[in-house]
């Protein structure tokens, strides 16, 4: 086995052209597990982790260019304009994994559980591919045809400017449902407990529990083959409790973590 260490993108592409069987390795957080367990033995690795062109983040007339080698840690610190990608990146693994794992590696592995992928798909991202023979081409990061139909879905937003928690439910009624009573209750409770003023504060657990109950009460689910109405309502309660707890944990963290 060989390890090739290119210092520029052109050099990396030349190496790949010469040794087509060589496998790029970036953070190694997917590949090294396979190597360590003896499941992967490529004839050569090309280390792309020090190719400077791949760690570029650029904003240009409303578009974001994200190098394949940008780590999750770099997204968290540097890409605050794209909150959903920051949030997805923060949820990956641990600090050690986020310091090495890259968005390009997430695409390369292409696991349906890849946390960066739904965000790229939601933004209609284009993936730019480059090789020495074919130059540059771009393809849409389409959603895969693996249909997963949710039994319940929930989107929670903590809006610091208007001091409101907003929550929408999917798959548990004829339309998307906003749980407005729950929103009022929790937003006001956070006001009176001084949570909006101080990011390290949390409302009492009882407030979160009441919020979850009100969210579940707002759902209007049906029984069908994928789940009963009672199960869906219960799922809303659990999701609401978790989503709010996670959001409160996250706003208490320093911005580098």
């Amino acid at each position, binding site marked *: *086995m060989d390890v090739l260490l290119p210092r520029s993108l052109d050099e990396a592409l030349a190496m790949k052209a010469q040794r087509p069987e060589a496998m790029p390795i970036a953070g190694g957080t997917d590949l*090294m*597990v396979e190597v*360590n367990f003896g499941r992967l033995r490529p004839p050569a690795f090309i280390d792309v982790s020090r190719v400077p062109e791949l760690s570029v983040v650029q904003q240009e007339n409303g578009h974001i260019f994200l190098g394949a080698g940008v780590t999750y840690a770099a997204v968290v610190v540097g890409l605050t304009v794209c909150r959903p990608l920051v949030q997805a990146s923060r949820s990956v693994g641990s600090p*050690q*994994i986020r*310091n*090495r794992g890259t968005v390009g590696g997430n695409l390369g592995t292409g696991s349906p559980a890849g946390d960066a992928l739904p965000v790229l798909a939601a933004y209609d991202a284009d993936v730019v591919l480059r090789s020495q023979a074919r130059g540059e081409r771009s393809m849409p990061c389409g959603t895969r045809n693996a249909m997963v139909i949710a039994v319940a879905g929930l989107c929670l937003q903590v809006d610091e400017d208007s001091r409101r928690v907003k929550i929408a439910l999917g798959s548990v009624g004829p339309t998307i449902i906003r749980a407005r009573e729950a929103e009022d209750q929790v937003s006001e409770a956070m006001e009176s407990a001084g949570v909006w003023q101080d990011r*390290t504060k949390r409302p009492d657990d009882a407030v979160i529990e009441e919020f979850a109950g009100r969210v579940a009460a707002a759902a209007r689910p049906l029984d069908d083959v994928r789940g009963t109405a009672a199960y869906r309502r219960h799922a809303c309660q659990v999701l609401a409790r978790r989503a709010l707890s996670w959001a409160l944990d996250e706003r208490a*963290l320093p911005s580098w973590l």
Partner: protein
Amino acid sequence: MVVRTRVNGEWREAEVWPGSSLLSLLRDGFGLYGAKNACEQGECGSCSVWLDGALVCSCLVLAGQAQEREVRTVEGLRDGTQLHNVQQAFVDAGAVQCGFCTPGFVVAVADLLEKDRNPSSVTIREALSGNLCRCTGYQKIVDAVNLAATRLQART
């Protein structure tokens, strides 16, 4: 292949199988046994070191990726015979039982305190989420972080 790396300030080189991890370069190549091999899949953090200043699991770095780079390990924390503040705090807080996870935790805590001298409990838990301990139940470890942070603040 021969890998040349600056480890704790000193340039060293060793011959390794090209598929080796940085962890095995450190242990088998350089005889630095502080970073531990427990899971080899990035889950436990007992192999934590700094690569060019970033906290990483050395089991997931290909040894060749550390070529001509800077690595800092738990062995580099001590100053002569004087334990590092974080190491001393682990001893004083009783945060060590079998000790297998300890070097990884010490490195992760030192990394945390370099970024945040007064971490909240949520920050501590998140910063240490990549390190597993099968013995202590974590509370003593969190106590050690708080102790190290308090001493760090008292110093300056």
